[in-house]
């Protein structure tokens, strides 16, 4: 027997495919051949390694047997659209491929007709039904949530190839989609909502099956954040993109969007989980009519594309370009650095519009970074804000431009804000004050530092943006407004813009 034949017989023996005599002859050869002995030793170790790996993997899927009751409804067209999504998006992250879990539920909740269990994983085809009383939340691994209200039925259709798919038979679902590369599709027989990084609510009536026959069924889509594409069945199918702040309605038998109205303030507040109700009508106020002393939400999404949800954002005003330039930002909760963002996005506070200037961005910046410095143009000095005063309070100090590298001089400010990280602040020469907002730990405080009086003042605005940290804040002198954009907080990563006009000193 040659060396090759012996090793082949040894391998066949490992697979249980070699005869006894053949194996014995191979062993005799190996015992007398040094190179074959070494090779056989390595193959034996490899076999042990493979067996150990197989034992390790045997634990996988142990708790999740495949269900037979998979419901088939995904048509070839949907599969094709999902494939196109994948191809177009270069979807390297595939969090949507993980099945959701029924994380939170209360009341009458069943999965495939059986009582729901806590933290139950939902395989493809699972039908979650919420009865007359109750609610249920499906949670994906990346944080995306689908909250089902009472009298609702939703079927998890699987990961698809580019989006996670669910079907809402009837009822109401509030979706909070984490910003990432994956999409989400919720379909019903009246239409299909396709989203990426957003908060929206889809409601399909009648709430209960068996409503009066002459009542046309309706679908209502309310978008609180981001943009949602609504696809309606028909030949050709209708498609409409619904921006944040609008609610669209579809009536059975009329395959087109009927009306697209601003969300009522209370509903918008409820969808985003805000503490106070911002008047959404304010979002359309011209910049010059923004009242002093109140944070006012803006609505740039109605004019065109926006940068979407960003965190760790830094913005600075550029007089040359006439707006706040997004210098740096990160996308999603994973804080992936947004590619080539330096100067790509520009927010025009007067027009409430995001732009993408092509001109090169240069000049001197009043940099508003986390706990960073802002430029006191009246006195020609930098103001440095650090949360390293007594008990972590915010300490403000000044430094002249030529003193770079030297220790800043502490100002004798009193009543400083308490300890906080990741706040943002900027200086307004008109008010001669620094405005500070937010910070880590769900902070939504607004503070002003009056330079002339060298004193801090805590403000009580009529509206507050959702608590946030790692957001951008800059002062726009052309509109006399402080602008907040993005950041992250209890509601996830934000894409909203808020403005504030600082009232004069008391």
């Amino acid at each position, binding site marked *: 027997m040659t060396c090759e034949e012996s090793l082949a017989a040894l391998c066949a023996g490992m697979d249980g495919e070699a005869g006894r005599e053949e194996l014995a002859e191979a062993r005799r050869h190996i015992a007398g051949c040094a190179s074959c002995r070494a090779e056989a030793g390595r193959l034996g170790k490899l076999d042990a390694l*493979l067996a150990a790996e197989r034992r390790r993997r045997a634990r996988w899927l142990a708790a999740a047997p495949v269900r*037979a009751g998979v419901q088939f409804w995904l048509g070839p067209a949907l599969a094709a659209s999902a494939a196109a999504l994948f191809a177009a998006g270069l979807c390297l992250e595939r969090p949507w491929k993980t099945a959701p879990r029924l994380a939170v539920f209360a009341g009458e909740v069943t999965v495939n007709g059986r009582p729901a269990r806590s933290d139950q994983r939902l395989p493809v085809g699972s039908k979650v039904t919420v009865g007359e009383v109750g609610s249920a939340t499906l949670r994906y691994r990346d944080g995306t949530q689908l909250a089902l209200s009472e009298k609702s039925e939703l079927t998890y259709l699987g990961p698809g190839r580019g989006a996670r798919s669910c079907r809402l038979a009837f009822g109401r679902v509030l979706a909070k989609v984490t910003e990432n590369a994956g999409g989400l599709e919720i379909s019903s027989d009246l239409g299909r909502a396709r989203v990426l990084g957003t908060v929206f609510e889809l409601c399909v009536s009648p709430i209960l099956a068996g409503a009066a026959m002459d009542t046309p069924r309706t679908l209502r889509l309310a978008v609180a954040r981001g943009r949602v594409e609504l696809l309606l069945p028909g030949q050709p199918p209708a498609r409409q993109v619904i921006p944040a702040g609008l609610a669209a309605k579809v009536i059975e038998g009329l395959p087109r969007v009927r009306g697209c109205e601003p969300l009522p303030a209370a509903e918008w507040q409820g969808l985003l989980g805000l503490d106070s109700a911002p008047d959404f009508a304010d979002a359309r106020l011209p910049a010059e009519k923004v009242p002093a002393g109140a944070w006012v939400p803006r609505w740039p999404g109605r004019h065109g594309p926006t940068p979407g949800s960003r965190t760790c954002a830094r913005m600075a005003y550029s007089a040359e370009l006439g707006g706040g330039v997004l210098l740096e930002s990160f996308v999603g909760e994973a804080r992936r650095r947004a590619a080539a963002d330096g100067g790509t996005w520009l927010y025009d506070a007067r027009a409430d519009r995001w732009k993408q200037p092509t001109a090169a961005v240069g000049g001197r910046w009043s940099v508003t970074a986390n706990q960073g410095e802002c430029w006191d143009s009246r006195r020609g000095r930098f103001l440095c804000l650090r949360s390293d005063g007594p008990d972590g309070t915010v300490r403000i100090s000044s430094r002249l431009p030529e003193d770079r590298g030297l220790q800043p001089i502490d100002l004798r400010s009193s009543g400083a804000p308490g300890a906080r990280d990741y706040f943002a602040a900027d200086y307004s020469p008109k008010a001669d004050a620094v405005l500070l907002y937010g910070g880590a730990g769900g902070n939504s405080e607004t503070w002003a530092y009056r330079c002339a009086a060298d004193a801090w003042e805590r403000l009580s605005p009529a509206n507050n943006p959702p608590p946030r940290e790692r957001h951008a804040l800059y002062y726009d002198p052309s509109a006399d407004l402080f602008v907040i954009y993005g950041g992250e907080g209890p509601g996830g990563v934000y894409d909203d813009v808020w403005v504030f006009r600082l009232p004069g000193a008391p």
Partner: protein
Amino acid sequence: MPSGDAFEGPKPAEAERLLAAVAPRLAPLARAFARSPEEAEDLQQAMSLSIIRAHGQHRGEGAPEAWAGRVALNTCRVHVRRRRLERSVVESLAAHDLPVPALDQPEPGGELGARLEEALDRLEPRQAEAIRLRALAGLPCAEIADALEMTEGAVQQALCRARRHLADILTPCLEKHP
């Protein structure tokens, strides 16, 4: 643009019955081709979906279970190809100092498994499939021959070559783990 009829579809009980019949074979396949428990779950679901989606294309040639097994194996092949593509894209992004998206990380304690996966990626595809099916899924050579449409002799040859090649690639690892 998807057509309107995409919203409704048949609900073939036959497909469900077939899936129930082949379900016990999907888990070993998923374990053999995935790198983590989560990925195995995803892959198992992807195989189920592929079988259900392709059910209408089965023309009655051969046993439906064998056909479903081939569909499942094809899904695993697509999965491995996509994973390889992802890695090459990530490597080229990193080479150009561009932002790199996060890929799935091996689970704690699975470093040896991760090394093995890297080594398997460097084998000839047929050899890699054969060794996955034999050593990680535990299929007998006859079933592997059916699945890969090879003779049993060819499967044994591929397995032997795969083992020797793997041993070459993993030599430092094998020396460290006696």
